[in-house]
């Protein structure tokens, strides 16, 4: 396997423009002869499907929800970054690029990140034209807020529902194409496998989640935009259905999986309340604009927050990181929270929580202003916890939120399988070892609106339309395999529910491959996961039939893949003998507990190649070359 990133030559600022000119084109009359499959209808998938439809390609788009508008992107709260510099506060494309590379702890590819920063400005223009109701100032111009890891205000938002509004924009563009006949939509349809023939991706195997029918779909190219794999931890801020199946199956068909261990643990989520807990709820990072994080100075202080005097409080982020304060990046804020809880200073019944206090801001700008900024988040907090955050500080704790790892892609967003493109959270490309807030929405839309329309043409121009063979042995085998797997899951009829396995896997992942990792824990996880997987295949109980609406069966297939994928994550985490971004190895830290990178040995993308169920995967390295940014130790002090 060769990892050729295909980074265009020339100065950073000119790479994308030059590359666009060098890319081959498909002439307008020929576009409709090509079919492209898009798996996923989140920001990355819907934007790709809509814009390829606009160009005239025949697009077939798939999602597992009942309508494309419900993709997990809908839940994004805080905002989307763009280097507009509307605030006149020193922002620029270069600064957004720099912040993203630095925020990612110097583990992302410069050229991709620069392009992301370049097209960020076009995204805002396009979304406004679509009717996305971004917040505005009284003068009628667009408003901005600040997000972690940046000292400029460049985040655009629509109350606390930015993802919703952006997705509805992309969804409406998609529906317009569906009406126009260029896009065929397949909701409630799950991709179970990728079809690769003669070394090219030419289709997918799907299961219709209503009828249970397993079938194959063919195309000239396949785009995966199936989102992240945070649910390998069982508890995360992701939607319940988010899964690794599409990307993991592609990995098993030959696509390299890059940096699977890079996971983002978000510092501000509502703490867990009991064993029945089914998911964790994010409280947007934007709250850190106005909220101050603190815990009691003394361990074991169980007094109500209001009874703890100013002098007895530790505003630990402001203390440790005076220049960024409450707005330091997520990985740092999360670890700091873990640290104070480990010291016994955590709050709430479980001791796994810290305060996020709005009292000062409410005094400064008034309760109305705070309500206008975060009303829906405060309401959500109150519904879940039964506490009123206008009166008492919120309690928050870190939770799994985002996965920076994903299928390896080159500059064209094509994986190691020709014809297989990967977008959005499903790829590894832009966020290195830690993603900055408000950058995932930007990336998903950049990929779909402004990158794939160019790069797909370059690929398609080199293949003959409709040149796949539906009756090839590989195509048939993929469909037979998928059906056999469904049958096998249904035939075990053991004693344990799918969820019980998922929870157990989640606990292993959280304790050994979560916020802090070390050799002993990872080695143990690498032993326990295969055992758990074997038990799953011996004793899981999936009731009902395959040819019907069967939610246990859907879950079982996803959990079966998580049970394999978790092992790959731990393997990656074990091999990376350094700390960087969200990957914190306790063996590799500075005296004051900060992450210690090892640029001599680990300044590369680690991409894993599948070699069979009974053989270890092979690691390939894409060296990261920094020609513009100087490798430095991140400091937010």
């Amino acid at each position, binding site marked *: 396997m060769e990892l050729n990133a295909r980074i265009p030559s020339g100065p950073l600022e000119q790479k994308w423009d030059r590359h666009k000119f060098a890319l081959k084109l498909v002439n307008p009359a020929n576009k409709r002869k090509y079919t492209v499959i898009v798996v996923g209808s989140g920001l990355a998938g819907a934007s790709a499907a809509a814009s390829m439809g606009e160009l005239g390609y025949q697009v077939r788009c798939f999602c597992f929800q009942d309508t494309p508008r419900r993709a997990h992107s809908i839940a994004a709260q805080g905002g989307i970054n763009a280097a*507009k510099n509307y605030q006149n506060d020193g922002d620029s494309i270069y600064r957004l690029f720099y912040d993203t590379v630095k925020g990612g702890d110097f583990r992302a590819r410069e050229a991709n990140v620069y392009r992301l920063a370049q097209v960020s400005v076009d995204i805002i223009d396009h979304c*406004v034209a679509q009717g996305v*109701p971004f917040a505005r100032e009284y003068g009628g111009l667009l408003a901005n807020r600040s997000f972690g890891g940046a000292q400029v205000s460049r985040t655009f938002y629509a109350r606390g*529902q930015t993802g919703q509004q952006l997705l509805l924009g992309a969804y409406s*563009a998609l529906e317009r194409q569906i009406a126009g006949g260029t896009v065929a939509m397949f909701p409630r349809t799950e991709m179970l496998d990728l079809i690769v023939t003669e070394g090219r991706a030419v289709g997918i195997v799907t299961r219709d989640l*209503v009828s249970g029918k397993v079938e194959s779909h063919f195309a000239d190219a396949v785009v995966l935009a199936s989102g992240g794999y945070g649910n390998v931890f069982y508890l995360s801020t992701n939607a319940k259905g988010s899964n690794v199946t599409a990307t993991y199956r592609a990995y098993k068909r030959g696509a390299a999986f890059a940096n699977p261990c890079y996971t983002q643990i978000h510092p501000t989520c509502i703490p867990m309340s009991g064993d029945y807990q089914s998911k964790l709820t*994010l409280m947007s990072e934007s709250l850190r604009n106005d909220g101050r994080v603190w815990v009691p100075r003394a361990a074991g202080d169980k007094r109500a927050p209001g009874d703890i005097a100013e002098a007895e409080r530790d505003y630990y982020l402001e203390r440790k990181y005076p220049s960024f304060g409450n707005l330091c990046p997520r990985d740092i804020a999360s670890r700091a929270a873990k640290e104070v809880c480990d010291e016994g200073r955590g709050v709430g019944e479980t001791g796994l929580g810290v305060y996020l206090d709005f009292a000062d801001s409410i005094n400064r700008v008034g309760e109305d202003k705070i309500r206008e900024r975060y009303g829906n988040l405060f309401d959500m907090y109150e*519904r879940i916890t039964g506490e009123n955050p206008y009166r008492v500080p919120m309690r928050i704790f870190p939770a799994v939120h985002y996965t920076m790892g994903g299928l390896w892609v080159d500059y064209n967003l094509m994986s190691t399988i020709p014809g297989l493109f990967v977008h959005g959270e499903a790829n590894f490309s832009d966020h290195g070892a830690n993603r900055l807030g408000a950058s995932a929405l930007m990336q998903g839309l950049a990929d779909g609106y*402004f990158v794939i329309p160019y790069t797909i043409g370059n690929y398609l121009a080199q293949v003959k339309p409709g040149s796949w063979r539906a009756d090839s042995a590989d195509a048939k085998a993929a469909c037979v395999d998928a059906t056999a797997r469904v049958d096998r899951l249904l035939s075990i009829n053991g004693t344990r529910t799918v969820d019980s396995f998922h929870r157990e896997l989640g606990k292993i992942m959280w304790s050994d491959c979560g916020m802090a990792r070390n050799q002993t824990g990872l080695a143990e996880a690498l032993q326990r996961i295969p055992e758990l997987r074997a038990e799953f295949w011996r004793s899981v109980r999936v009731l009902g039939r395959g040819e019907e609406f069967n939610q246990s069966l859907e879950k079982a297939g996803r959990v079966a893949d998580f049970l394999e994928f978790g092992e790959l994550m731990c393997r990656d985490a074990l091999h990376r003998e350094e700390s960087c971004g969200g990957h914190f190895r306790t063996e590799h830290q500075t005296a004051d507990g900060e992450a210690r990178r090892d640029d001599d040995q680990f300044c590369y993308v680690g991409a894993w190649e599948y070699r069979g169920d009974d053989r270890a995967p092979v690691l390939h390295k894409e060296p990261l070359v920094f020609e513009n940014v100087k490798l430095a130790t991140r400091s937010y002090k």
Partner: protein
Amino acid sequence: MRITLKVWRQSGPHATGRFETYQADQVSPDMSFLEMMDVVNEDLIGKGKEPIAFDHDCREGICGMCSMVINGMPHGPHRATTTCQLHMRSFKDGDRVTVEPFRARAFPVLRDLAVDRSSLDRVMQAGGFIGVATGNAPEANAAPIAKDAVDRAMDAAQCIGCGACVAACPNASAMLFTAAKVSHLGLLPQGQPERYRRVLGMVGQMDIEGFGGCTNFGECQEACPKEIGVWTIARLNGDFLKGSLTARGDKRGGGDAA
């Protein structure tokens, strides 16, 4: 807490359904309604019975996937709250709770509590968009938009497309859903060129899908988890009237997108 649940079970779109009764014995007030349902399902699987099918995904009240009519009310008793955000502290020990699917002609039951709401997508296809292809947009700050207009557009744009308004309406009308989109786009300058085409197309498609007409019961507004108001319907009616008077026979908004 102990809760007795009376749940609608229906094995497929063409099967006849019936209520079945289940006991949930160890319900914590901090559980969400869906977490309580998860526990019931785990228990059913343990007993070798097929779990209750219900739609859900985000479990944070934003994707619009969860549905269910709880004690006669879409999304249950709590104002401005989806089923997934409803917590068991809204119920009392010993309560009997009836759970049914959203019922409407345009929402056929797929299984148990899960229904097919694709009719709403088709209403969107008939005009619920601004026809701007990628790459055409002018600079975002070139045209200021009054904050009040955007705030009001946002009030309407918050619709999560869950269909509770349809389930609540005695006529099973999708008027609030449609009006929310018509208002969101109609309040913005970008939405003006297609304003009347849009409303005619979407309302026409609503009829085709078998949604009932709106006779101003206002139940939709009460059921809406995002508190979208019937003011949007008033706007829609105004636009519809104006559009009908000036229409040139083309009632579909979509269809010429490519």
